[in-house]
Structures are given as C-alpha cells and as structure tokens.
C-alpha cells in the first residue's frame, strides 16, 4: 500500500482575526474563561495557513459547546457528549477539513467518555479543545468528573466522594498521541499550544484550565494564580530543561523511577542534571509522569506534554480505499450487481 498523508488545503491569502469573527453576541458570563479562549482561537486560525472554508468546528453540549456559534467557520453544535463522534464522521468524510472539537469536562469525560477514549485510540486527525472548569456550568453547578474530591457542589452538599480524572493520564491511557495543558489566563501559551495542536497529525487534546466565575470560581487559582504560579507552574518547552521557580532555580530530575523536584546549586545539583523535555518521544513514560504532577509536592506541568507521530485513522481509510480501487475488478455498481453467480432467464 502506498503511504497517504492527507493535508488540509492551504492558501496564500493572508487571513486576519476579522475573517473568523462572527456577528453573534457572545453569551458567556462576564469574566468567563471562554472569552480568552475565543480570543486565542481567533488569533491562531489566521496563522495556520488553511483556507478559511476548510475549518470546521464541532461541539457537544455545555457552556464550552456554544463556541462554534461565536467563530465564523463551518460549524455544527451537536448533542451532549457526542462531539468526538460527530467530528470523526466529518473528518473521515472529508480529510481535507481542519476539524476542531470544542468540549468540556462534563461533555467529554462523563456523558461522552466512551467517544473520547475511542477517538483518541483511533488517532483521528482532529483537534480537541477541552475546557476544564471542574464543574457543570450550564446546568448550574453540579460536580463533574474532574471536580476535586471533597468539593462541595449543588449535588455534593457534603463534598464529592469521587476520584477525579487527570485528563492527561486518561489521554495517554487511551494511547493518545498529543496532549497539551494550558491555563486560560495565558493567551500567548494557549495560542502557541493550539498552533502545535494544529500541526500535529492525529487526535490532539488541549486541556484548557478554564475558570467558571459563577460556579467554581478560582478552582485553578491554587495553581495558576498570580501569587503562586512561579512555584506551582512548570511550562514545558521541547528541548529545554524542565525549570520553574521565580528565577528558574528549581527543576525536575529523574531519580530511580520517579520524578523529583531539586534546586540548582543545592546538594550538588547543576543545570545539566535537569531533565530535558522531549515532546516527540513515542514512549509516553516520562510524559505520563509529567502529566500527573500536581501541587503541593510538585509543580503542575503546562505546554505541549506529548506530541508523538503515528499514522492517523483518516489517512489509513484513504490508503485502503486507494489500494482497493487499484486492485478490485468492481469499479462501479453495475459491476457489483453482476459479480459472482448470475444467470440469464
């Protein structure tokens, strides 16, 4: 079989933010993280280089899933949990479209959990933007599969008794090829990661730690808040050492089989001892460990954590069709109808 790599049609026409702005009123709450995400998308889409007609946005249900109405592309607002399945159909039907799936922690990890793991397992070439606000917003404040254990919500008045998902761990457990994590208060990092996601062939999952100002305000503040973030956030860069702290004085090393936080200059640690990030590594071992890190003992890791190259489902579909067309005697439906045992009466 011949190797096929379908790419989205490119254009030389310079696009701008205005090309993707919709005329619809954005109906998210003032202060919602969604506004910043929308700004990042409008910033990154013109830079990717695709024809504007080749973008297709697909969503499920929830606050996040109103997104397609707010961007001027082709778009379909689906039903609860099914955005990944709808996106899969769009991409298989036309692999020349750049498909963006907008979803939330309830939509993708609860009602749509099955589609989420399977789209990742198949490595369909689409970009999932997962708004993780750790709460059900549109139904007004029930706990979600990412709500931290013990959290009081409207359906957990005594605190939740469920273990939350770590999205990165789930993605890699489902054999994911791309995972990035970004906070909603850093548009530059969001834009950068979305651009990386667009470049990646296969399913990309970008977890956006989004603030729900009404029902889970400051849920991420203990990590991404201005006062603490130097100590609690480690922003990865491919090929660069994993450093954090106010003056980049702290870093991660691998000790035995575990990651450990060290300080440069203490206990004989030098800059050379610090782990260097390899987002392209096919082996997800270190990447998985990175995705699971969290305060208080570790910083949380942001940026592109994994971006490994594997064949995409949609390319393989095209490859099989091409091979069948080259080798089969059945070239049209008349051939098919007359194939096998037939006789004249």
């Amino acid at each position, binding site marked *: 079989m011949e190797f096929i790599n379908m790419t989205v049609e490119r254009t030389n026409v310079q696009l701008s933010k205005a090309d993707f702005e919709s005329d619809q009123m954005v109906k998210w709450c003032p202060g919602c993280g969604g506004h910043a995400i929308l700004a990042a998308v409008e910033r990154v889409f013109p830079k990717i280089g695709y024809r504007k007609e080749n973008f297709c946005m697909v969503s499920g249900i929830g606050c996040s899933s109103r997104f397609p109405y707010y961007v001027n592309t082709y778009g379909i607002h689906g039903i609860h949990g099914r955005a990944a399945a709808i996106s899969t*159909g769009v991409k298989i039907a036309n692999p020349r479209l750049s498909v963006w799936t907008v979803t939330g922690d309830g939509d993708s990890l609860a009602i749509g959990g099955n589609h989420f793991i399977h789209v990742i397992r198949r490595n369909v070439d689409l970009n999932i933007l997962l708004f993780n606000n750790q709460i059900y917003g549109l139904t007004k404040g029930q706990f979600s599969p990412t709500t931290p254990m013990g959290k009081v919500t409207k359906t957990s008045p005594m605190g939740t008794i469920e273990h939350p998902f770590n999205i990165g761990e789930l993605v890699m457990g489902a054999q994911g090829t791309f995972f990035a994590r970004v906070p909603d208060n850093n548009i530059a990092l969001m834009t950068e990661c979305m651009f990386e996601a667009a470049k990646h062939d296969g399913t990309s999952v970008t977890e956006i730690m989004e603030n729900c100002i009404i029902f889970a305000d400051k849920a991420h503040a203990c990590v991404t808040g201005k006062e603490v973030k130097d100590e609690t956030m480690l922003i990865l860069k491919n090929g660069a050492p994993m450093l954090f702290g106010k003056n980049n004085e702290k870093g991660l090393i691998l000790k035995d089989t575990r990651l450990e936080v060290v300080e440069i200059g203490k206990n004989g640690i030098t800059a050379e001892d610090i782990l260097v990030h390899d987002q392209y590594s096919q082996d997800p071992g270190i990447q998985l460990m990175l995705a699971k890190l969290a305060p208080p003992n570790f910083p949380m890791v942001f940026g592109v954590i994994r971006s490994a190259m594997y064949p995409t489902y949609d390319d393989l579909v095209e490859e099989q069709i091409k091979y069948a067309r080259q080798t089969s005697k059945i070239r*049209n439906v008349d051939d098919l109808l007359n194939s096998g045992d037939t006789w004249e*009466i």
Partner: protein
Amino acid sequence: MAKKKRPVIEREEVVVKFVGDSGDGMQLTGSMFSDVAAIVGNDLATFPDFPAEIRAPQNTVAGVSGFQVHMGSSKIFTTGDLVDVLVAMNPASLKSNLKWAKTGATILTDTDAYDAKTIEKAGYKQDPLTDNSLERFNLVKAPITTLTKESLKELGTDAKTAERSKNMFALGMLFYIFNRELKPSFKYFEQKFKKKPELIEINKIVLQAGYNYADTVEALESVIQVLPANMEKGRYRNITGNVATAWGLLAAAEKSGRPLFLGSYPITPATEILMELSKHKSLGAKVFQAEDEIAGICSAIGASFAGSLACTTTSGPGLSLKSEAIGLAVITELPLVIVNVQRGGPSTGLPTKSEQSDLYQALFGRNGECPVIVVAASTSENCFYYSYMTAKLSMEHMTPAILLTDGYLGFGSALFRIPKMADMPAINPPIAEPNDPEFKPYRRDPETLVRQWAIPGTEGLRHRIGGLEKENIIGTVSTDPMNHQIMTDFRAQKVENVANFIPEQEINGQAEGDLLVVSWGGTYGAVHSAVSQMQKEGKRISHAHFHYIMPLPKNTENVLKGFKKIVVCELNSGQFVNYLRMKFPMPNITQFNKVQGLPFMINELTDKFNQLLEEK
C-alpha cells in the same frame, strides 16, 4: 448408473428444510440446494433459521440450525409455511422441526445419529424412529454417517473429515429425489476448494454416493419434478435482504454523486449490512465501525454535514439508542438514512426472530415534534430498491429517513432481477453553489420547503447549524415563540410534501369490495398469497400493501373507502392499524396481529379473512 424407473410427480411448489446441529453445515447444504434450483429456473425464496448462540451444546434442541428453501414453477412469495421434505441430521433437529412438516411429508434422517444418549438429549422419551410416532410421514431412514465413511474407504480419508462430509451425502439423496443434476455442485466444489484439491474429490464422491444410494431406497416411491418458472426475462442472481439493502445504498451514492459513509455498530440481524459495505472500498464506501450505536449515528451526522450520503444501520434496541441523534438530524435538516432491521422486542427480546414492532418507534420515538420519512421494504430483493429510494428521498428532501426491514427479509434470500444503473431514478440533492449571495442556512425551496446542503470546504457558504432551534431563513440561534412555531410547521410540512414524490398506493384486486386486507413490510408474501388464493375462490377481497408509511401515499384514504371492511395484518399488537385510525378515523377498520417471532402462515390469514367475510 442406471436410474430405477420411478414415477415422476410434478409439483408447482415445494418447501424443503435442512436441519441439524450447528456444526453440521446445514446453511451450506441448503444454499447449494437452492443454487441448483435457481440455475434450473425455479423461482425461490430461502430462509436460514439458526439459534442466537454460535455453538449451543451438541445434539440439543437449542443447538439446531436450519435452512429452508421454497422453490416453484410459479412466482414464489414466501419462504414457505409447512415443509414437504425435511432433512433432519439428528434427533434434536427432528424434535424441533417436526411441527413444521406437512402430513405425508418426506422425512430423511440419519439413523446413525440416534442412540440412547442423543435421543434423551433431544428430549425424547423413546426412539421416535421405532415408536410409530412418525406414521403420518414418509420416513426415509438412512445410515448416512456409516455410508459416508464407507464411500470414502478407498480414498483413506480420516474418520473426522469423512464424518464432516455427511451433509453432502444427504444433499446427494435430495438431488436424486428432485431429479437434479450433480454437475453444478461438482463445479462449485472445484471452485471452492481450489487450494485443497483433496476436498474436491471427497465431496464429489460423497455427493454421488448419496445420489446412488437414494436410487436403492424402497421408501422413495417417486421422484419430484419442479419445472422452471415463467420469469420475466433478464439477468438474475440470488440475494439476501441485507446485501440488497447495502447495495441499494451503494447505488444511491453512485447515482447522486455523494460518497457513501456508513457509521454502524454490530447488532443482529443488521450486522450483515455493515459487513457487506466494508467489502466495497473500491467503490469509495467509507465504513466506520463505531464504539457504540450512538457514535454510529453521530459520525453519520458529521459525515452528512460534510457532504456524504450518510447512513447508519441497526436493529430495534440500537434505534432506541439513536433516538436523540435522529432529533439532531431532524433539526439540522441533514439527510441521513437509518436502516432498522427489526427483530423481536422489547429490550434484547428475540434477536434472531422477526417482528414489525418498531413502527411506533420509527414514527414517534423521539423528543419534540420530530417527523422523519419512514419507508418499508417488503421482500428480500426489493430491499435494494427501497434502500435506494430511502436514500433518494432523504437527500432530495434534506431530512432523515428510516428504512424498516426485518430479520426474515434481511437473512432470507430471493431471486433478484439485476437492474441497470442507467435505469434507476435520478437523485438530485439540493447542493448550494459556491459564493451564492442568496445562500442562507434555512432558506427553503417554496414548493418542497427543502433547505440547501452547503458543504464545508465550499467557498462563501460558511455557516453554523446545530441542535438549538434556529431562526427561520438566517439560521442563528432563536428562542422566539413564533419562530419555533414556524420552524416546527416547516419541518412537518416538508416531510408531508414527500407524498408528492412517491407513487400512489396500489391495490391488488378490485378497488371496491367486501374486504380490504392491509399490510406493510415483510409480511407481503404471506398476505399476498392468502388474498390471491381467496380471489381465485371468487371472494370480493383486495390487498393494499404499503411501502411508504410516512408520509402515506396521497390516495390512501380513497383506497380505504372502497371497502365494507378493512383488516390490517401485522406482526405486532397493532401499530400500523392505529396509525391509520389516527389519520383516517373509520369504524370499519379491524386488525389481525401476531407477536410470536414467527411470520404469518397463509392458512391462519385465510381463516381470519373468511371469518370476517362471514360475519355480518
């Protein structure tokens, strides 16, 4: 070998059933027998009858697998009610199928399969071959296993292989009984076992041995001749309903120029459509085996948005899971073909048995005001035409359409007169032109109320659709009360307007009379045969068989009005009849129903019709 002089009895139609253990090869034996009947020019219909389990315990009633062939020198409409010749390879298969044998039927059975253990396992208290319980039948007892082994002695075939060929010995005997040539089967062996030449020889020897042995059997007083049927000229093939459904979709894709996408999840009895379409990548069919029923339909909705002829195939429980997504396709006004190969319900029900009990679900099983087109095929071979038409109507009217078939149609096979693609009706989906300045997502054709299909990637048509109600014409999200009324009415009227594009309802018989028999879907053969029989007897009875359910043909009310009494026959508790009563409240509509996972028998229909004709 010289044949004994036996009288030849000519029969217009014969029903033969092969039954045995799941591993006895009854499906193959039956289909080889029917292939030869087709080649000599009989019309025929076949039905495989197998358990839900793959290999239930040996020699038990639960493990019996069967294949029924109804062949004739005139048009065959059903797979046959009662059996003229029963081939039973063991006591369990005899036990479970004897109830289908006509009095006087020929029963051929392998005496080697009867011992104390197998007789007990089958649930017999004593050996049915010796206790005179089979006196009503023409019993042919043959030591088939022993004779098969003996015939292969010279070849030195091992015992296991020899035993596995015993079905070919039985088939050889049947070919003798029906005066058939063995050549076509020899040719079949040569093709099938090209890579295992020893099997060609073994099968030929055993088949011939069975044929020769039958010639010596005293119990066979005559041979049966079924002459060729007078069929419409043309090229023919055998086809099952599920394969015909799959090919109809491929044909609609080719004709419309829209690539085929199938998103589906395996479920009995619909899986064969998914498997069949998976084979046809050379025709560009994109087949996605989804993680569940919901992903099956949702991927199809995505593919439809992206411009494919998108389909999903399932059976009753799967249709339940798809309900919410059908609503999405209704409100987004995207074409989508949903095939439901009905089985016995509710819940898991009777997976391998047939029923018509999903009609309500197809018509009404969704939240909100949610009309879809509903079409039903009536024979295995016309699954091709009706799946084609379902796809055509769905695309041309930009609305989801459900095709109802059932397990009997899907698994059953019939002769299919091969059409030419050039003769199939044109399919013209309303695709929006690039940069059309007039384009709006919900602008409609004033006559049909159909919106345009604006396919992603097309220049100048970027737009959003979705599950929230949209403003008329411009397609932005709207919660305006009057707008919701307008859009609801448009969606309903758009589907009603399909009635202008389907044929009028036909009547078999006079347009006026004492009794109109109404049926739909897979019961066509039995009901048609029953009515025809009574028409020949001079009864004032007519038959209207419906293929288009939603909307109904425009003349439906007029068809019903011409009769003193109407009886609607269905394999459910009365779903179509209540639908008709709702649309056309008439006091003279009665019903005849059966929910046993079994088709109608012709005599139970004629009994009912006669009773209705006699009642004042």
